[in-house]
């Protein structure tokens, strides 16, 4: 059995349009989601997150490339994948059904469905189960989607923007359930988001996607431990092309490096070349995200900073 819950290789998805150039939603995505991890799939709007999830669920067809979910191919083994994986994508269920109807509808599809879990989450998440889906608030709609996914006894949960549009209280409630009840039992949780603070709170792995490519994929501990911002004054500084240096910004009199590994070795080397290291500062996930997607501090949508 593969130790990866999800794997993609050179995954491409192009959307053709009659009177416009084709859109490359995914442009060679290589992703590796370890089993048992909480994987935060980060990216700006339009980066390719939802397209990736739709491909994984077998809802869309890739233009080229390979992918595996729980060791199976979503194009050929959709049904066994869907029996073992909970997907929450559009957060739109059947509008005319209430929560109890949706539980009844869903139950027949999943061999490991648990009515006890459904009842438990309805109570814990305080979902009005007798109200029609279309009349529920956004928060309760999301909770109901999550209830159905959690009750199906899935090994893997794939959630697309689970906390979008929710207030902080509901967000906290959902994240607690996901981490405490689901992921702590060794199951895999894959969640796409552009709310970095939430991902940083729960995830142990992150993948940053932009323009259909995965630009960074590491465990969050490694990211936190290794990424450093180094400001330097000096001449004949090392080139930006070195693998160790993620990014270089040359300013007025100072040069700023984003270093991804071995900061001590790098600063020692700089000093030995006569450079003055002004400061070495750790970076949080938001700062790393901004550097990785190449936007710096300016021109970044507010939601990314949330």
């Amino acid at each position, binding site marked *: 059995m593969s130790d990866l819950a999800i794997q993609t290789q050179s995954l491409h998805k192009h959307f053709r349009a009659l009177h416009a150039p084709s859109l490359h939603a995914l442009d060679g995505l290589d992703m590796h989601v370890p089993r048992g991890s909480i994987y935060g799939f980060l990216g700006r709007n339009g980066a390719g997150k939802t397209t990736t999830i*739709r491909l994984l*669920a*077998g*809802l*869309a*067809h890739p233009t080229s490339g390979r992918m595996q979910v729980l060791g199976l191919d979503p194009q050929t083994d*959709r*049904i*066994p994948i*869907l*029996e073992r994986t909970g*997907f929450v*994508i*559009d957060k*739109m*269920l*059947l*509008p*005319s*059904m209430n929560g109890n*109807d949706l539980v*009844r*509808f*869903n*139950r*027949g*599809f*999943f061999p490991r469905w648990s009515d006890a879990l459904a009842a438990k989450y309805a109570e814990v998440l305080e979902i009005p189960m007798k109200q029609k889906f279309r009349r529920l608030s956004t928060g309760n709609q999301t909770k109901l989607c999550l209830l159905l996914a959690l009750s199906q006894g899935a090994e893997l949960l794939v959630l697309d923007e689970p906390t979008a549009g929710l207030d902080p209280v509901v967000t906290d409630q959902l994240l607690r359930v996901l981490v405490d009840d689901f992921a702590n039992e060794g199951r895999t949780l894959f969640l796409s988001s552009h709310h970095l603070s939430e991902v940083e709170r729960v995830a142990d792995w992150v993948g940053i996607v932009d323009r259909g490519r995965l630009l960074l994929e590491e465990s969050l501990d490694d990211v936190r431990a290794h990424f450093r911002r180094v400001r330097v004054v000096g001449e004949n500084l090392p080139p930006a092309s070195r693998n160790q240096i993620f990014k270089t910004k040359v300013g007025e009199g100072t040069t700023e490096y984003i270093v991804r590994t071995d900061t001590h070795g790098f600063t020692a080397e700089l000093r030995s070349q006569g450079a003055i290291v002004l400061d070495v500062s750790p970076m949080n996930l938001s700062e790393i995200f901004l550097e990785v997607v190449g936007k710096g501090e300016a021109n970044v949508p507010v939601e990314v900073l949330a």
Partner: protein
Amino acid sequence: MYLWKYWRESRILFGVSLLSIAILMIAILREHPIIGPHANAVQLSSVWTVFLGIQILPLCFVAWIFGSFGVGRDIGERSGSFIFSRPGNRAWFLWRDWGFGLSQVLVIAIFLNLAGLVQMYRILVAMGDPYRNIVFSQNGAVSLTTFAGIACLAAFLLAALVFSLTYFSTILIKNARGVFVSAGVLLGYLVLGMVVRHHWPSVELPSLLLQPFKATRHMGDAIADHLGLAVTIRAAIVLLFPFAAQAVLKKIDI
């Protein structure tokens, strides 16, 4: 459980349809048929016209609405990703929608024809013993039940065509607004038929409605030749649409 979803969506229309037929039946039973003094024989084609006339429009309307239920509508309402992320292949959902919807149309067609059958029987009874249970024609006799069966089949085949075309259209445009596409196609075919008849009187497009009786030169009627073939061809056309819908659904991104 999936059929239960379709049933939930369609049950009001189904119930209203059956209720309307029940009311029609009661109205029929309350009225006494009035037979003119010279009514001594019934020509099949005339009965046919009256018999189908009262049911084709309501039945096709119901079939048209039934065709809009199912996965095409779900995709349009953004529920497609929920439905199709349940374990089941796309064709599985489609054939259940189509089969269940068509069964409901069939039940309505049978009950409508039952109402027609009752009315016809009462007319024949009022005409007197020689005509009871028999509709005469010059070339032979067709029993009333056979006649009602053929009428039911003809009405159902047309309704099934409307239903299947509408169901296909909703999947093709990924929206319940496919009902307008199918209405446009059906209307377009009728207009085309009129245009063809106007410009080329010798050419006639195949009728959407099964024509089971033929009129002879001397006012006689008989069951048309090759009726079985005509039924088979129409049934095949009806079946073509879910297969086409399946091919479309397999290819599209949800």
